[in-house]
């Protein structure tokens, strides 16, 4: 196993961790807004945020490529600020994994928050809590199990993303080649032995993460 390149694993872990951070912030805030506020366009936002579940990853990747490509306003702004293009970098892989995994966190957290008995929040409001304090002291802890489940699903999805990442970050060994892409790459080269090792490692990491999360979920309350 000494000749196996571990860069893809390390990159996958970094990409999945950062993507999950982004997904957690956006997903939980979005879930809170969707389940606690009524506003026009709410259904449309929910539908668009859920698109990554139903769209083929390549189509999602295409949209992302158009959105952050060198000729797009976002791509141009990024290049002006950071001095390099965004597409075909590991940062683009983070973005791809975050977008692909967002609906798993958002939908699970929305369901968890919506399922809370309104009486807890009402009792806390009468007791003087409101705004972000109400959210952090009452609502989010009561939905903790569901939120943790959503975040773990999002991590698993981010870790395993292939199509979207390939479209926006490419397959550059040592720079943007994540674990799932490395497995594909090795199979294309008929190097089944290395592909098998990489697949087994990725599966083990995923199982360990899910077991840890399960334990966290059980002790959340």
């Amino acid at each position, binding site marked *: 196993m000494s000749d196996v390149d571990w860069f893809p694993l390390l990159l996958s872990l970094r990409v999945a961790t950062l993507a999950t951070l982004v997904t957690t912030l956006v997903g939980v805030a979005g879930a809170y807004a969707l389940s606690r506020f009524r506003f026009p366009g709410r259904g449309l936002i929910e539908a668009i945020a859920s698109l990554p579940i139903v769209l083929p990853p390549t189509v999602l990747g295409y949209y992302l490529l158009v959105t952050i490509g060198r000729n797009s306003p976002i791509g141009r702004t990024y290049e002006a600020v950071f001095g390099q293009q965004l597409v075909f970098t590991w940062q683009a892989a983070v973005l791809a994994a975050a977008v692909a995994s967002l609906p798993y966190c958002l939908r699970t957290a929305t369901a968890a928050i919506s399922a809370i*008995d309104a*009486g*807890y929040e*009402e*009792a*806390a*409001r*009468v*007791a*003087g*809590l*409101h705004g972000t304090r109400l959210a952090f*002291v*009452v609502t989010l*802890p*009561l939905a*903790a199990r569901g939120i943790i489940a959503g975040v773990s699903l999002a991590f698993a999805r981010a870790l395993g993303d292939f199509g979207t990442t390939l479209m926006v970050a490419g397959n550059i060994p040592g720079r943007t080649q994540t674990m799932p892409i490395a497995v594909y790459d090795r199979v294309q080269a008929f190097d089944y032995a290395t592909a098998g090792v990489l697949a087994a490692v990725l599966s083990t990491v995923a199982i360990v993460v899910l077991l840890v999360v399960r334990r966290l979920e059980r002790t959340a*309350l």
Partner: protein
Amino acid sequence: MSLRVDVRARVGEFHLDARFELPPGLTVLFGPSGAGKTRLLRLIAGLDQPTEGRITLADRAFVDRSERTSLPVHERDIGMVFQQPYLLPHRTVVANVALAADGRTRQDRRAAAWNWLERTGATPFAERRPHQLSGGQKQRVALARALAGGPQLLLLDEPFNALDLERRRRLRRLVRALVDETAIPTLFVTHDVDELAELADQVLIAEHGTVRTVADVAATMRYLGDP
């Protein structure tokens, strides 16, 4: 300081019409299930909005539909005990009460919480989590939480319904003592005649969505005997 209520609310087919004044002391709101008692408490607390009318406490308007103003729930300075205790399961008893307590620092709020837990007889289980308490213990904590913020109005919505007779009797005495001590205008909802007879300084009757004052317990008993 008294609470003045003159509101109408319509929810689907149900019409609520309430007009009364709540002086300091203990007023019992009596009536059968579905008469609009809980709905009225929710209007006063600001958890629901009336269709028309106004609710004022001393010179503060909680809600005034003619002027389209409504004070947010957390600014009304109300203590409320619901039919269920709704204590946060992830916090200890004292932390639950401290959330509602007045005080600038965390220590101040915890000290206030301990003080109210002592006055409601809840100190022996102050460090426990809510799931480790009995129903009566939970409602003692809910009562401490309702009082910890220094409320100007206390609302109790059939708080002891789920308890056995002996616990109800003990908690009734506790409520009576606390209301006498704090002199907060208090509205106690019940459909239990014993509770009415033991607690009421003044009685409100709720019937088919109409809430009116019926003076005192004796008048209520005559009313109930010959409606």
